[in-house]
């Protein structure tokens, strides 16, 4: 289905000329006339099913498809969700490039996009506590709130894992700083996960969890080993 969107008077001329390139079978226009209703349902599906890690790829593909039709998608495109998708997948490079490509007028008129970018920026500069401030410092709209909450929980867990692997002892203030919680809540969180508190010097002793790794063998491995030996012999 070929559809063109026309947003301004200059572009009406383009529409007239483009009409000459009528594709085979004629052009089908949307019943609403000139304004195109962009089909954002794949993104909404991902949000509804909470597949937040897939949001970035869905957004990328849809954006390229719309761009290839010459459609001016920027005004109605959900940049905030797109940016947050990249941040969620920890793909800060793509988030940066996307931010650079957003037109200035859109950045100025939609503060939510700037707020999402603030989170990305703090992650990029490794301002660990700044991420929490950025998350809490904005009144998120309804469609993005669930995703922000999910990201926040994920981030706290990741921070905790990082502390687990990097520290053997760490001060309570720093734990609170990295986890974005008050000192008491941070102590509770740490004690819940098996850490010990040395209250004399306000240090927490880290206990590394036992990691269980899979090591089972199965018969297909034998087949593969046979193939390798055969290959090496010949």
């Amino acid at each position: 289905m070929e559809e063109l969107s026309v947003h301004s008077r200059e572009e009406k001329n383009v529409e007239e000329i483009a009409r000459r390139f009528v594709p085979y079978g004629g052009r089908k226009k949307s019943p609403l006339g000139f304004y195109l209703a962009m089909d954002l349902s794949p993104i909404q599906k991902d949000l509804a099913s909470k597949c937040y890690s897939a949001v970035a790829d869905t957004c990328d593909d849809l954006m390229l498809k719309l761009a290839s039709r010459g459609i001016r998608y920027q005004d109605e495109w959900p940049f905030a969700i797109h940016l947050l998708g990249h941040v969620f997948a920890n793909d800060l490079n793509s988030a940066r490039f996307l931010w650079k490509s957003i037109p200035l007028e859109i950045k100025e008129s939609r503060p939510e996009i700037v707020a999402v970018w603030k989170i990305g920026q703090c992650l990029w500069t490794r301002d660990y506590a700044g991420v929490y401030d950025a998350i809490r410092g904005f009144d998120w709209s309804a469609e993005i709130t669930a995703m922000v909450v999910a990201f926040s929980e994920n981030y706290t867990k990741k921070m905790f894992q990082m502390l687990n692997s990097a520290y053997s002892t760490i001060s309570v203030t720093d734990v609170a700083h990295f986890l974005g919680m008050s000192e008491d809540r941070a102590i509770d969180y740490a004690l819940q996960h098996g850490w010990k508190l040395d209250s004399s010097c306000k240090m927490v002793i880290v206990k590394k969890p036992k990691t269980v790794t899979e090591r089972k063998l199965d018969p297909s491995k034998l087949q593969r080993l046979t193939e390798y030996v055969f290959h090496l012999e010949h």
Partner: protein
Amino acid sequence: MESVEVLVAHIQGLFRSSDEVSQLHSLLKQSEDALRSHADRLVPFLSQIDPSIHTLGYLFLLEAYSSESISREETSGFLLSVVEFINSCSTEQIRLAPEKFISVCKIFKDQVMQLGVPMQGIAPMRMAIRKLQTSTEQLTTLHSDYLLLCLLAKCYKAGLSILDDDIFEVDHLRDHFLYCYYGGMINIGLKRFEKALECLHNAVTAPMTTLNAIAVEAYKKYILVSLILNGQVPSFPKYTSSAALRNLKSYTQPYVDLANSYARGKSSELEACVQTNQEKFQSDSNLGLVKQVLSSLYKHNIQRLTQTYLTLSLQDIANVAQLNSPKEAEMRVLQMIQDGEIFATINQKDGMVSFHEDPEQYKTCGMTEHIDFSIQRLMVLSKKLSSLDEHLSCDPTYLSKIGKERQRFDFDEFDSVPHKFMQRAYLFIRKGSPNGVVRHCPQTILSSSIMIVLEKRVTMRR
């Protein structure tokens, strides 16, 4: 105009059998000049032909139309029709006239760039590459155009789907240079430095009789990425062309100086070197990479400490790595642990860092899968190399070169013949001019990864 109408009627009357298509193909080739003379009036005819069924006819008309310069107002309409054509065209018919298809795609890319909307070209170009390729291992002329569009539109991730294919067939060497250089740039943008190093390495060591600008730029980035990743720049491998060996360093002097300064390990000296050459780095658009090189010096200095010490205080780390305070050292070590560049634990109570060995035991399921996958790839590569071996040894030009020296071999030397055979084959590839090799060995696989394995076999059998 009449001839065009007659032609269009022919095209529409086609019923898809292969004789009719080849008949139509010869008819179209004969009518090329007629089409071009009516280039500006072809537009209404385009709407009468269905591109999915009458691909070949549509392609010839489109190519004739685009060969003349397109007016500004018609550009967006032209772009849309090319996009629709690429999406719906039939692959078999495209492959009958690949040069025309490539020509249309190139003009499409030029128009998209001129109009300042590179993003519009990405999805169609990707589809065009997939339709033009006979297999995912073939490098087409469109690969480098696609990567260029991804770079301009800043959609770096989109380039990965094409970059991750292993290439074994190269038709034109120039495509290879551009593909490797742009591929390197995309990988650098996504911080995949190992892959970037591979791409740039291929660009620098590809066969060339005279130095070209692409190889020079690739070498500049190669030096910077090697420093970021490994802290040193490796020397040229044996299969590098002599043109590159002799001349590359003289064209990239500021970067060579930077590498030498890096090797001495003092960040103040490195910063001074960057300051002196700042304009050159700026004009090559490499200043961002140079800054990354600077910050990587701290990392490599800290990494070197792990080879000497089991535990070290944060204050000592700060002193050795020329950082400002123990707190800054702690943050740096934390970042390195997070990125997996170092294995250590920080003890804030005593202000000490203990360094550990890599805890990977290579026993887990995931790791075994990874190893299996790598072995499978190597087996495929090895099979391809054997078939390359056989092809080369049957090639007439190669045999005539060998034949001149046949009197040097007698029965006593029979055992060593395969080794000398391989050595000659290797020299043959190295000394042959790019066009010469392509002309004489059209089936030959030219990828440098094959050349690396080739090189290794020579040394193995020695």
